[in-house]
């Protein structure tokens, strides 16, 4: 289905808002959570009801959407109250009305974070989170590396439709991107999420754009957008805000909106 595109208000017409679920992967520290939070805002501005789900035991994906306030992770709620946690406890309405949830997980060096992600997503299913909140767009912000079966849960049937990989031109980031893309490709016969593209979060390393373009080409995918290295992002973070909220006219904000439109155009 192709959209006719946003109207003058920048929003897509309601009939063109379809369920779109994105899982964001990429090397730890590459800026996934920052980009995910901004894309969540962007989708909302395009007319979607959005939920961002942090899939990381650190439970720090959504802090830019909650004004820096820590959410009680779903797994902590399950541990304390048992399964079947009420939806109202698992999700919080954040910046601009984006719904926020954090899977949480065990402390470092303990437990099983992979199984934790599965359990947390299943709790949201049990509570019919997407149905009850009429969610049109879900952004799963996933821990750095897909190290076991549990961390692939967001790309399984019934969860994300698209995988977006965040990378820079740094070698390790691109290596992680390639690894994740290979995993997605490995699962292509299973009906899992497809690779929608790469977002380049520039670190201003030499030849960054060429390197990342070559990477995209080698992976048979596209560059969805190139985010310039920008102080505006850090300034906004200091205020516990996404840059799209704090400085919507910043070049990085403009590019984030464009990426959001491109992702919606692919839906």
């Amino acid at each position, binding site marked *: 289905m192709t959209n006719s595109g946003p109207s003058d208000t920048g929003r897509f017409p309601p009939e063109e808002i379809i369920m779109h679920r994105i899982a964001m992967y990429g090397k730890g520290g590459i800026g996934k959570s920052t980009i995910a939070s901004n894309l969540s805002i962007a989708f909302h501005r395009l007319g979607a009801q959005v939920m961002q789900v942090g899939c990381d035991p650190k439970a720090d994906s959504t802090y830019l959407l909650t004004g820096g306030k820590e959410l009680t992770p779903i797994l902590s709620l399950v541990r304390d109250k*048992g*399964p079947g946690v009420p939806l109202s406890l698992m999700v919080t309405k954040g910046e601009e009305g984006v719904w926020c949830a954090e899977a949480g997980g065990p402390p470092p060096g303990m437990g099983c974070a992979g199984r934790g992600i599965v359990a947390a997503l299943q709790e949201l299913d*049990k509570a019919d989170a997407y149905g009850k909140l009429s969610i049109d767009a879900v952004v799963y912000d996933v821990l750095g590396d897909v190290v076991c*079966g549990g961390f692939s*849960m967001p790309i399984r049937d019934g969860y994300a439709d698209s995988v977006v990989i965040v990378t820079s031109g740094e070698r390790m980031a691109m290596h992680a991107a390639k690894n994740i893309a290979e995993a997605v490709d490995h699962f292509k016969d299973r009906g899992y999420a497809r690779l929608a593209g790469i977002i380049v979060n520039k670190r201003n390393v030499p030849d960054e754009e060429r390197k990342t373009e070559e990477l995209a080409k080698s992976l048979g995918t596209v560059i969805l957008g190139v985010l310039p290295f920008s102080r505006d992002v850090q300034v906004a973070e200091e205020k516990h805000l996404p840059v799209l909220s704090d400085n919507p006219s910043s070049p990085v904000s403009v590019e984030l909106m464009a990426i959001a439109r491109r992702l919606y155009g692919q839906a």
Partner: protein
Amino acid sequence: MDKHKEVMMGECSFPSPFLESLEYTPPARGMWNIVHIGMLIPESHQVFICAGGCLRGVVLTAAEMGAEDRFSTVSVEEPETIDGSIEENLVNGVIDVVDRLPKKPKALLIYSSCIHEFLNVDLDRCYTLLRKKYPVVAFTDCYMTPIMRKSGITPDEKMRMQLYSLVEKGEKDDGVTFLGDVLPLSRTCGIVREVAKSGRTYREIPLTKNWDEYQELGRSSVFLYANPAARKGAEELAKRIGGNLLYLPYSFDPATIRENGRKLSTLLSVKEEDEREWEAKIADASHLAKGFSVAIDYTATARPLSLARLLLSHGFALKRIYLDAFGGEEKEDYEWLKEHGKGIEVIKASNPSLPFDRSREEQENVLAIGQKCAYYEHTSHFVNLIADSGHWGFEALDNLAAEIVSAVREKKDTESIVSVKGWGCKV
């Protein structure tokens, strides 16, 4: 009293009276497990996929019931837990087994395990591949996942659901199918007699002898169930293939039994069953049991507190109840017992000091209802009631009275009875 192991009824909290602790398993084996239950599907074959240690209990369950030829295993080993091949090994292992069976079964029950949950194996995909490979075989997903027992639906509930998952939607008649229990209902109980009076066909899975009869379970337009563990399975079946569903819970409370009877007779348009002089029979049993202290446990019935209330209110010297938690439907009986049975000891059936707390000598004046308490109390005067044993309504009270009389008068060989795994199961 240490709440890791015991608490007085008057001080119990609902639904969990005890603190969590390590758990112990007594050698009372009459309850059916997931192997026994799965074998109720005629012409089916089971394949369990798990680590060797976990397979042992189920493979020997099948061997002890003489069902080795309906049971196979695929072991999970260390390398596949690390190298990602666990999913393909599940599929290939099942294929290997099926290809070596002398005859393709009508149904394959595949039991995956805790390790598949923790490694997030895509079971849907596995079943898709298997169904594609064997289109004439009906597959159902079953689970040996005790680690998930507090994560939502319990393994027992799930198994009772999967038991009917292969019943197909088809033509309907006015028959009645009783769902969710493993032993056939007594021929003389209210449900069976009233259905007979109504002229309708009575069906239940323990009576099915082949695949066609199993499929006929779905022809009924009325579904009944009495065990709360069967609720999810019953609801799912009725919704999927259509049918009127009625819950007629097990109970030892005459008012509830009468209510159940009214609902059933209204539905079937027949006269209600008589009460079989239950009160006089229970009174006689109570009189005979004077001098005996009584203990019960949760394996005897789906409603242990209802049983406790009946016994206490009819003059039995009920001293101890063995269980691990109270069932959700027992709140009213719990409140009554808290008021009228304050001094009853409620003992955690799984507490690990029980082997040492247990009396060394056989107790002559203890009547036990339930296998676990028969073992704990070290008595031969025991009523071998397991999950209601197919008794329902006033017939259950009638049967209880008769069994108590028999237990008081005659000793049983407790050890050889309670050691039998899956009491009453047949291949």
